[in-house]
Every structure is written in structure tokens, then in C-alpha cells.
């Protein structure tokens, strides 16, 4: 902060600050409404600080009454954690193979991967649904994990990073008698830890937010994730907006907290790989 404040930059900061506030105001409004009594939610002009606090009442309506919101939460958490771990292992194995091992048809296989990256998952919904039915996994969490435990963009991201690691480490380990799996596990993975963290956070967020897969592959309420649970909740509570906002806060807040703690990883990963789920 040695440089002098420039007037133009101060003005720019103020204008952008207002724009940024406008931009995230729906989320701030959600936060404040979740702590209000029902009749205060729709007041205009907006009261950012609740006139009458009703936080605990709304909280207990969402979390402790008819709808098993805690169960949806647990389901989402379980699926997101398992899916993330599997994706990291599967993608990093492929990334290691594509970046450091030499074998016939490697480039052809890479192009196959690239080609299927371009197939929108939405266009394979019907056959995947039939497949899951046939193997008897309809309405199970296993089906969801199976549908989501792969990520071609994250494979690309990790491959890019592993390609940048010097071969000397690998050669040294080879002379030490280490096999390829040992090299992958003991050398490659530890060396690309930062990008694994990035990939893990991104995958976790994508899985947590996924609505399409649970909508199609689940039907039992006790298996619902937070996203399909939200749907159930909003049909149950109808026009009870304060309660709906409390549910929305509950769904989003953990992601925002995790993101704020680890934001550098997330933003770096997106910038480097242009990754998008």
C-alpha cells in the first residue's frame, strides 16, 4: 500500500462495489429473509436486518419437523464425498497414464476421450436410465455414484499438471526398483497435491449441486439429496417463503464457506484448465 490512492481507482472501486452488492444481493436477501417472520419477507423497501428475528423457528421448521432435511443433507454429503474420492482416483490414474507412460495407441485413446468429452450428458439420459434399470440399480445411491464418478475435464486438468513434472523423479524411482503403481501413488500424487485439491473441491461442488441425476435415478424420499429435497420442501411449504429461504441457505451456505476458505484453489483450477462441469 505504498502507492498513493488514485481518485479514479477509488471511484472505480465504489462503482464496482455497488455493482457487486447488487450482484450478490439475491443471496444476501435470501440470508436475511431466512431469519424473518413470514409477513416481513416481502416488505419493500427491503429490510436487510430482520425487524423481528425468527431464525430458530424457521430453522426448526426446516431441520426438525416433517421433512427429513437432515437425512437429505447426509445423503448429499455421502454421495458427494464418495463420488469425489472415486473421481480423483480414476481421473488421476488416467492422467498419469496419458502424461507419463508410453504405449501404443496412447494418442488414439486420448482422442477418444476428447471426443466423448463433447457428448452432452443430457443426450444420454434415456439409455443410461434404461441401463441402470436393467442392472437393478434404479433408486439407489450406487447408481448416482456410478453416473458421476468420472470426469473427463478433471482428467485433462490433472494430465496437464502431471505433464509438467520432471521425468527425473520417475527415472530415479525406477532405478530404485519402484513399479508404476508405486510411482503413481508415492511420487505423482504427492507432487500434484494442489491440483488434486482443486479438482476435489470442484467435483464436490458439482456433485452437491447436481439436480438432474437424483431427479431421474431416485424415487424414494429417504434417498433424496438436498437438491431434490428442496423440490419436495418447496411443494410442502408452498408460499411459506421464510422457510423456503432457510432451506436455500442451508443448501448453499456450506458450499460458500468451503469456497471462501479454499477459493484460491478453485479459481486457480478454473483459470488453468478452463474446467467446467
Amino acid at each position: 500500500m505504498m502507492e498513493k490512492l488514485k481518485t479514479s481507482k477509488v471511484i472505480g472501486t465504489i462503482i464496482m462495489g455497488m455493482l457487486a452488492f447488487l450482484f450478490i444481493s439475491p443471496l444476501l436477501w435470501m440470508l436475511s429473509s431466512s431469519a424473518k417472520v413470514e409477513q416481513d419477507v416481502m416488505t419493500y423497501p427491503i429490510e436487510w436486518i430482520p425487524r423481528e428475528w425468527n431464525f430458530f423457528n424457521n430453522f426448526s421448521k426446516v431441520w426438525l419437523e416433517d421433512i427429513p432435511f437432515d437425512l437429505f443433507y447426509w445423503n448429499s454429503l455421502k454421495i458427494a464425498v464418495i463420488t469425489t474420492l472415486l473421481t480423483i482416483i480414476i481421473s488421476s490414474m488416467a492422467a498419469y497414464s496419458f502424461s507419463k507412460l508410453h504405449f501404443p495407441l496412447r494418442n488414439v485413446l486420448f482422442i477418444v476421450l476428447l471426443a466423448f468429452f463433447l457428448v452432452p450428458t443430457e443426450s444420454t439420459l434415456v439409455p443410461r436410465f434404461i441401463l441402470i434399470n436393467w442392472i437393478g440399480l434404479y433408486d439407489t445411491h450406487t447408481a448416482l455414484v456410478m453416473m458421476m464418478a468420472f470426469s473427463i475435464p478433471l482428467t485433462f486438468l490433472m494430465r496437464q499438471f502431471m505433464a509438467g513434472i520432471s521425468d527425473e523423479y520417475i527415472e530415479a524411482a525406477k532405478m530404485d526398483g519402484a513399479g508404476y503403481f508405486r510411482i503413481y501413488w508415492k511420487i505423482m500424487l504427492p507432487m500434484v497435491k494442489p491440483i488434486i485439491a482443486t479438482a476435489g473441491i470442484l467435483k464436490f461442488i458439482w456433485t452437491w449441486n447436481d439436480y438432474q441425476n437424483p431427479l431421474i435415478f431416485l424415487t424414494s424420499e429417504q434417498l433424496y439429496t438436498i437438491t431434490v429435497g428442496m423440490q419436495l420442501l418447496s411443494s410442502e411449504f408452498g408460499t411459506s417463503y421464510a422457510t423456503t429461504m432457510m432451506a436455500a441457505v442451508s443448501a448453499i451456505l456450506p458450499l460458500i464457506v468451503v469456497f471462501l476458505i479454499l477459493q484460491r484453489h478453485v479459481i486457480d483450477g478454473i483459470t488453468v484448465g478452463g474446467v467446467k462441469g
Partner: protein
Amino acid sequence: MSEKAVSNYKTKKKPSLWNNKIKESISGYLFLVPEFIGVFLLGIFPLFFSLYLSFTDWDLVSGLQSINFIGLENYRYLFQDPAFFLTLKNNLIFSAVYVPASIILALLIAIAISSAVYFRDFFKIAFFIPYISTMVAVASVFAVLFHPSLGVVNNFLMSIGIENPPGWFGSTDTALWGIIIISVWQVVGYNVVIYIAGITGISKELYESAQIDGAGKFKQFLYITVPQLGPTTFFLLITSIVNSFKVFDVIAFLTQGGPNNATNVLVYYIYEEGFQNFRMGYASALSWILFLIVAAITIVTAKSQKQQF
């Protein structure tokens, strides 16, 4: 570790080069097995199976033995199906607004953040937060904000003198616009972050020499920033177009394609036909059209990019 490696190298017999190669190849394939199980399960099999299904009239409920091969019937029906053309039209409107809006807005915000403000990281994070927020939760917030009579948005519009504010998600004229607003709002931050990275990569010297030549800020923006960001814009263009054809969550959650099909788009129509009407054959034909559209756009855009540079 390296010392030990060297001593081992000296004492151990070196296995033949050929053996090493075979070992490496086998390992290479083995490491790819899990990923390619995924490619087969979620890519190859579904793609070709849905191509097959698209030539049948299967309804899922009545077992595989009642599968009827009907040739191109589904595709012929598709090209006469007014509902299909309506969803295609909605999708095109969505794309035509969503793609330029999310890119131009992001470019302007990114430039402002990288040149005209203090606390850059704070701004990056603020604009990025919607991108990580759960879409269905966000949609339920917007539904309340855009409530036709009680919502904050319409209250604001009325306070600045608009007497008949739009009915948003309740009206066939404006529901799609509501969907577009939510979708753009959610994705802008992602584009901003990508653009900021691109802007950081532009050489400072370009601006300095432009300044010496007497070019103003706006000219610099037009003749340096925009062309230098070409590859970034191209990347965002492809991802935005492709994503605009995949829009689903917000529609499925908020409007179910309504009111009166005003927000029905391709993916939602596939969902309706396949999972509500159980017309698996027809839904598969629609899926293939979606796939072909996305593939065509990607290839055409990629080709035009190559010619340009």
C-alpha cells in the same frame, strides 16, 4: 533418494529394454481401465444404444420383447412435431441472449476488476459466488424475488413508475426472460474469472506503446484488449453455446417448461417425453438431435477459429 538410486543402478542387473517396454505398455493400459469403463458406461454404450432406440417405438414399461423397429418414423414425426419446434425456438432465443449477455457482461466486469479497482480478489470472489451456489436453491430465491405482485423486483419497477410490471414466471411472455436472467447471473462470475486470467496475460508493452501513440482508453480497449482476448472469448463462446443447449435444472425446478410451454427447451422436452410419457424411442431421437446440434456447433466454431488465426 538419488544417491540410493544411483547405487542401486550400479549393483542391479538392468532388465532388457524390450521387457521394460512391454511392462510400461501394460501398466499404461491398466491405469486407463477405470476411466474407460466410465467412457463405455456413460458414453459409448448410451450413445449407440440410444441411436438404436431412436428407430423403435419402445415405451419402457412393456418389456424388451415388445420393442418394435419402426425405421425413421420417430425422426419423421419429429420434423412435424410443433412441440419440438417450439422447444427448439425457445432454446434458440435462450442461446441468442444468454451467450452474448454472459460474455459481454463478463468482459466488462473483468476489465473493470483488473484495471479500475482496489481489492481485486474480493471482487473476483463476490462475482464468483453465484457460480458455486446450488441452482435449485438459487431458483427458489429468484422465484420469490420475481413474484408478480409481492416480489421485490416488481415492487421496485412500480416504484420507478412502471405501472404494469411483467408477470415473470407466471406469464408466457416473460417466463423465458426470467430463466435467462437467472442463468446469466449464475454463469457470469465463471466467465469473469477466465477473462481476468486472459487480461493478466496481455503484455503491458502493448498498452504503453499505444499510449505513446496517443490512443485513448476506449481505443486501447477496442484495438488491444478485445483482439488479444480472442482465444479466451473463443473458449467462452464454445462453452456458453454448448451450455445454452444443456439448460435444464432451473427449468425443471421452477417452471416445468411452462407456463404453456413458454420455457420448454430441448433437454426438458427429452425429459418430459422419456421420463413422464415413457416414449423412450422418441426421447432417444430427440437426444440424438441434441447431440448433433452440440457436435455441429462445436465443430463449426472450432473450424472458424482455425481459419481466423
